[in-house]
């Protein structure tokens, strides 16, 4: 990187690519070429910066200027102003909503201030398609160290001592898992990387594979060395074409450099990695289901024990870790156990990546130290609730996590605290809800997901969740009874108690946690036949206040079903028998004459 005076980093993550970041890269290249600057300035498509809310992102190094919401049309100006004249292009700088000032670099952006990037350390910094850039940032040093200076047992002990726990959701100590697999005697063992990311809205694994694939490859090789496996498999969903492509390029480069294959770094250790594609079934994130899918069988879980570490892929000892878990490993080797375990809380070391979404101002991918509070994440990093609305709940742990409330906001985030609060870490989905969200509908929404994704193998998950959904549907339509609410609780607990795998064992969590934390909302739906948030269509009515209505006819003209009538400049009226409760009139009215009752 030393030959160039300047580097222009353009986000090449899936989100920004959807906003034409590839064209921005091309535009920069041709603009620089036209001005004969292409020898001095290099353009790089990187992995995800995380600040997806403000994408596409362009960062200029060495001065660390951070441009947001860049378009192809802005390229010329950036080159003109920043590259040639050496002054930042103000209109594309991040605008701090609190101080109303413009911020030039990430160090001063609230979204980044409290983040600690370990797993995402290279995302947004390097060209993921160039192994040299990974190596330049200490890449493969950890593998070299393990192979040349450590025995497999020492290396495993190091991972154990670091306190790293599985980032896929369960939080099982990673080093211990390696140790158990290492102790098994077998002619063949496997290292499997679980890249079957399936939580709605979560994209940390995809971003790591898109932005820093070598970190995962390196960690898998270290794991292979520790447990005595010569074969690695990445199980990745086929809907991640960019991640797959970058992973393929990285594998090829690693092989070329002798970092995969036979006799790696002259150590006598052989290791190589294959890719296996998943068809996108959520349940295949469960390790036994994942293994069955890789074997060509129906992707459904089987009872544990035996655990994969004893009998996994093709019946051989198999160590399954998630992408984010692996991405943490090389840094632990490079920076040491003490450094890693100094970050985080007592029982949860290091950081966790969350996909922050929902009603916050700054949605995106964030990496925070364990022990940070929900409040810090939502209000400092997330920039608070969108539109100045009131915070209502935050859902962590993906579709089967729980909804936490105001009272949990100061809970330090770690595996154990989230479970104690009635939710879980999961793979890192975090969805924020505001006062407009109906918690009964939210519970129903999550259940719809598990209903779709249940494999159907065990009775409670297959039929129980269906029944839960039917009861919730009844309640949101104003036909529920108090007995129904009780049934939700009883059935939910039985499903948790009797389901075969983690999917079923956690699927009632959104219901049980909203029953605990928002019981009044359920009661309002059942007793008063009202949806306090005004979301349940069957329980709301739109009405026009004749005193406030100016007769502007805007609602009349926008109603898709002709339910609104009235003369110009006279109060209008909604025919409730025709109204489909789409809410368009409510949104269009400029005089607040329409209310939801």
């Amino acid at each position, binding site marked *: 990187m030393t030959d160039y005076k300047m580097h222009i980093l353009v986000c090449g993550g899936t989100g920004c690519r959807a906003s034409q970041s590839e064209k921005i890269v091309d535009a920069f290249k041709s603009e620089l070429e036209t001005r004969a600057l292409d020898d001095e300035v290099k353009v790089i498509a990187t992995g995800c910066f995380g600040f997806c809310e403000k994408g596409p992102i362009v960062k200029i190094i060495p001065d660390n200027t951070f441009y947001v919401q860049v378009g192809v049309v802005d390229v010329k100006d950036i080159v003109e102003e920043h590259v040639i004249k050496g002054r930042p292009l103000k209109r594309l700088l991040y605008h701090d909503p609190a101080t109303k000032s413009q911020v030039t670099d990430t160090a001063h952006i609230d979204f980044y201030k409290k983040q600690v990037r370990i797993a995402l350390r290279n995302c947004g910094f390097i060209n993921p398609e160039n192994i040299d850039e990974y190596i330049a940032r200490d890449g493969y040093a950890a593998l070299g160290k393990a192979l040349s200076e450590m025995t497999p047992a020492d290396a495993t002990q190091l991972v154990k001592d670091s306190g790293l726990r599985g980032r896929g959701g369960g939080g099982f100590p990673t080093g211990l898992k390696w140790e158990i697999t290492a102790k098994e005697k077998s002619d063949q063992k496997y290292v499997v990387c679980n890249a079957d990311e399936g939580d709605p809205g979560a994209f940390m694994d995809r971003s790591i594979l898109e932005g820093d694939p070598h970190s995962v490859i390196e960690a898998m090789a270290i794991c292979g060395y520790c447990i005595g496996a010569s074969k690695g498999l990445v199980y990745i969903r086929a809907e991640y074409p960019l991640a797959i492509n970058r992973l393929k390029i990285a594998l090829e480069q690693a092989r070329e450099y002798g970092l995969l294959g036979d006799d790696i770094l002259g150590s006598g250790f052989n290791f190589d990695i294959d890719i296996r594609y998943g068809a996108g*079934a959520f*349940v295949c994130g469960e390790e036994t289901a994942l293994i069955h899918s890789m074997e060509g069988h*129906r992707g*459904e879980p*089987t*009872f544990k*024990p035996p655990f994969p570490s004893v009998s996994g892929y093709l019946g051989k000892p198999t160590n399954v870790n998630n992408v984010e878990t692996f991405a943490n490993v090389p840094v632990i080797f490079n920076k040491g156990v003490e450094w890693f375990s100094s970050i985080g809380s007592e029982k949860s070391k290091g950081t966790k990546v969350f996909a922050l979404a929902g009603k916050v101002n700054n949605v995106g991918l964030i990496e925070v130290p364990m022990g940070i509070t929900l409040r810090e994440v939502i209000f400092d990093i997330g920039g608070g609730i969108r539109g100045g609305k009131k915070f209502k709940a935050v859902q962590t742990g993906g579709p089967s996590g729980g909804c936490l409330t105001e009272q949990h906001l100061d809970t330090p985030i770690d595996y154990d605290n989230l479970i104690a609060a009635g939710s879980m870490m999961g793979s890192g989905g975090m969805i924020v809800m505001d006062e407009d969200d109906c918690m009964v509908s939210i519970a129903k929404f999550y259940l719809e997901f598990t*209903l*779709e*994704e*249940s*494999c*159907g*193998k*065990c*009775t*409670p*998950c*297959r*039929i*129980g*969740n*269906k*029944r839960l959904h*039917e009861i919730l549907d009844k309640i949101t339509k104003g036909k529920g009874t108090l007995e129904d609410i009780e*049934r939700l609780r*009883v*059935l939910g607990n*039985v499903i*948790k*108690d*009797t*389901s*075969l795998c983690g999917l079923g*064992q956690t699927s009632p969590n959104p219901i049980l946690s909203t029953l605990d934390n928002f019981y009044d909302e359920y009661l309002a739906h059942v007793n008063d036949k009202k949806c306090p948030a005004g979301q349940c269509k069957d329980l709301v009515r739109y009405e026009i206040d004749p005193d406030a209505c100016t007769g502007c006819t805007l609602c009349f003209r926008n109603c898709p079903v002709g339910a609104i009538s009235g003369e110009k400049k006279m109060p209008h009226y909604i025919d409730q028998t025709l109204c489909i409760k789409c809410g368009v009139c409510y949104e269009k009215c400029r005089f607040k004459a329409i209310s939801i009752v």
Partner: protein
Amino acid sequence: MDKIKLTIDNKTVEVEKGTTILEAAKTIGVHIPTLCHMKLDDMGIENKPGGCRVCVVEVDGRKNLAPSCVTEVNNGMKINTHSMRVINARRTVVELIISDHPYECLTCAKAGNCELQKLAQDMGIREIHYEGEQSVYREDTSPAIIRDLDKCIMCRRCEMMCNEVQTVGVLSAINRGFQAVVSPPFEQNLDHSVCTYCGQCVAVCPTGALTEVDHTPAVIRALSDPSKTVVVQTAPAVRAALGEAFGLEPGTLVTGKMAAALRRLGFDFVFDTDFAADLTIMEEGTELLDRLSRHLAGDETVKLPILTSCCPAWVNFFEHQFPDMKDIPSSAKSPQQMFGAVAKTYFADKQKIDRKDLVVVSIMPCVAKKYECSREEFSVDGNPDVDYALTTRELAAFIKLANIDFHALPDEEFDHPLGDSTGAGVIFGATGGVIEAAVRTAYELHTKKSLPRIDFEELRGMDGIREATIDFDGLPIKIGIAHGLGNARKLLEDIQSGKSQFHAIEIMSCPGGCIGGGGQPYHHSDSSILKKRQMAIYSEDGMKTIRKSHENPYILKLYEEFLGKPMSEKAHHLLHTNYFDKSTVFEQED
């Protein structure tokens, strides 16, 4: 072996390491209810997906309830199989299953034999607290098996039988969540799959999701038609199992009562498939000797081993899956079809009845026989040699329908001439029996000497694959036996690869042979029932005065009066068939 000590319902129990909670509980008389779990002891057949969750129990210190069928015991475990928590969970699970099951118990073919019905009864379920949408699927009727998937509870037993035991590979779970169900690939109908109609899926289905096609109404119509002469043949394995349907101890032979019942049902002639079994031995045994002597004479075109061909599911299996081996099985028709062919020619001529006015009904332990009798090559001008095939279960139901007190029936004999058989014909019903019968005849025909012993214990048993060498007076004859199509596949693959060499192989599709057929009274996972039926078969053989097919006087008379000699042109025309390559039959259609 390590011993594990634990307590179940406050009782201390010591069992071997690796034992499941379910098995451990059984040793102290605690019978935890199960639904998806199924185990045929000593036969290597077990289904334990751990899916139904009916068998959950509470284990001290464990977060959730443990499925006892798959959870292995640990030292010091404290288990409660009927705590409030367990009962509530188990009832809820059963209620959930019922909530997605048609409330058709009164009219269901499986009523009285349904394991879900029994479970609900045992648990005293009187109300379903979680009613809701029920899954609805298209009904699939094939020539032999009906799939009513509305009644499927996803126990996966059929899938395990079809894939692991039979290696046919037709049934498998499809779809997800509430829509998940077991089906042939791409939700095709069974008759558009490589299904062999072995019926082992039907034999293990706990509910009415899989049942046989009912031929009874058609048989009743024929019996009520004065212009028709209706004859019936009964397969060897039926007499060893029919009694179970009337509460008799498994293994009770009811040959005489069965003949009496059939006569009371109105059949004009009550014959025995065992007669045709003797005939099969004459043809198949002769074919074996013919191939053998040509082989010994150095004829390299001759194909060995010879494989038996009595089992219709086995024929379907190799036509679909081993078409390149279709010249190896004996060309002899199955006893059912030999009977039909002889009845509609020799017997019809004797009775001076036009074949169109003669109706042949068979009583079979098998559902594949329904398909076999519908094969085009087994009919003349559209008139089938065998018109209808009833299973043992259908016969039992028919007897009950006709208000016959089975227990009070006297023992009666079969009619002549197609009702007289030898012990060799009877043992066709058990694995190893066909080849033993063939050996009894082939030995004497080949050596021209009398057998020093009639019982070949080395050919009997329940092991899935068995081998034996029989000394044909200095000529060692290597014999292979497989029951269960998975075992047949192994044997065939060993032959294909040259790993095994045999002169003759007997294959029966169902575990245990016809006594374990898909049309027999349900064994409800009790493998001792199969063993008792097997013993019954051999005891009937032992009681017979004539025990070698070639000594059956009526068979000798049939050759003398009608067929000439075994493998004669007439015999060939009536008693032999040829097989088809069906490996691409669906590709051609699509």
